């Protein structure tokens, strides 16, 4: 009987290798990829016009195609919030709850495995590769807390770990697994060459925006302003776009930096009041938070500062509420020294 494994596919090199190693042992593999909302993903980077030149691809799909396996993408945005709000094992350097995240993903993959009659799970983890989630002492925690126990196989470093069920049962040959460890990427690159993989993704920090310092600062600012750890899908998308200026605690301005972002923000004008310069070329700005119409002028002055009319005596802007009612305002753009550094999130 051919055994079946489900692989956690991030799209990076490690999961690519892990799958290939197991495929070579005549195991049927399918991939699963979890969409948390924070995934670093080619297209969301491509909102900015200048980034659109490079062809974008979804790395998980690309990896699955290289491997010739099916890929199941699972939307876990809602459930994942609990992981971000309340990680039992805390955060990494930024707001990345990596250990809890791993546990959660393995738990979800286990549910999928059981529902689809698969035998075990594989991941591309390597002992000692990440400071928190991939340490020798934290790896067993993933197995324990997710409930997967010894049906979790990590082909790249299996030889450094106790034999798992697939190894003990002889479904896979432990001798043909690897003993990678630590932060070095050299063995992975050599193996990639051996397997003939080229042009694979090499994510710098981690697999999601929560490892990004600037992004985490913006998310924390949002939580502080709202008085609770909350976010919706729109919030996490918008944190990736524009400059964020909190000139008052109750609201912030999201100002497009160039055309691509302006176009993207336009799609949100039914959800957020907005400001757009009309007398001069300039950005589109969404207003997020508790905003009173009396504050239009002061917000407009800031937006005008980022338009081509920044040195003009007056700039005209159109304010539009979420119903689509518009109103014109004329203001003097904020002088450079009036724009406080601490406003910029």
């Amino acid at each position, binding site marked *: 009987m051919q055994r079946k494994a489900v692989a956690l596919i991030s799209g990076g090199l490690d999961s690519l290798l892990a799958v290939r190693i197991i495929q070579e042992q005549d195991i049927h593999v399918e991939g699963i*990829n979890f*969409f948390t909302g924070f*995934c670093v*993903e*080619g*297209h*969301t980077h*491509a909102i900015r016009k200048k980034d659109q030149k490079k*062809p*974008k*691809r*979804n790395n*998980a*799909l*690309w990896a*699955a*195609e290289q491997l010739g*396996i*099916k*890929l*199941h*993408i*699972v*939307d876990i945005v809602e459930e994942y919030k609990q992981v971000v709000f309340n990680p039992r094992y805390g955060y990494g350097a930024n707001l990345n709850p990596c250990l809890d995240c791993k546990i959660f993903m393995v738990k979800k993959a286990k549910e999928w495995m059981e529902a689809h009659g698969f035998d075990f799970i594989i991941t591309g983890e390597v002992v000692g590769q990440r400071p928190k989630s991939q340490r020798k002492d934290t790896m067993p925690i993933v197995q324990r807390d997710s409930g997967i126990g010894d049906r979790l196989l990590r082909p790249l470093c299996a030889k450094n770990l106790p034999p798992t069920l697939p190894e003990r049962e002889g479904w896979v040959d432990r001798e043909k697994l690897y003993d990678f460890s630590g932060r070095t990427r050299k063995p992975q690159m050599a193996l990639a060459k051996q397997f003939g993989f080229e042009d694979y993704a090499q994510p710098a920090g981690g697999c999601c925006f929560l490892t990004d310092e600037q992004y985490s600062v913006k998310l924390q600012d949002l939580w502080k302003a709202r008085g609770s750890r909350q976010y919706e899908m729109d919030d996490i*998308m918008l944190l990736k776009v524009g400059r964020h200026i909190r000139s008052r605690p109750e609201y912030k301005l999201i100002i497009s930096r160039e055309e691509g972002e302006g176009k993207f923000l336009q*799609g949100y004008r039914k959800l957020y009041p907005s400001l757009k310069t009309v007398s001069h070329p300039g950005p589109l700005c969404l207003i997020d938070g508790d905003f009173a119409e009396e504050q239009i002028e002061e917000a407009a002055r800031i937006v005008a500062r980022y338009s081509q009319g920044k040195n003009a005596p007056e700039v005209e802007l159109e304010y539009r509420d979420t119903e689509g009612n518009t109103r014109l305002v004329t203001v003097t753009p904020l002088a450079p020294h009036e724009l406080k550094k601490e406003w910029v999130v």
Partner: protein
Amino acid sequence: MSRHLLDCRRLLCPMPVIRIQDRIAELEPGDELEAICTDPGVMQDIPAWCRINGHQVLETREEDDEYILLLRVGEGE
């Protein structure tokens, strides 16, 4: 054979792929699904997803900043 429509406007990748995947799971082989999207990334991702999972892309077109893909559900397992 039946034909279905799916609105994926304003969704960013990979959300359109997820919506299409979940919709196709409810359809029969041979059924057709027309997806209307606004994220240009779908022009790469959806054909890739179809190739991997054995579905067919019958047609793609771009109309007023919208990307429309016509898919045919494959045989599955």
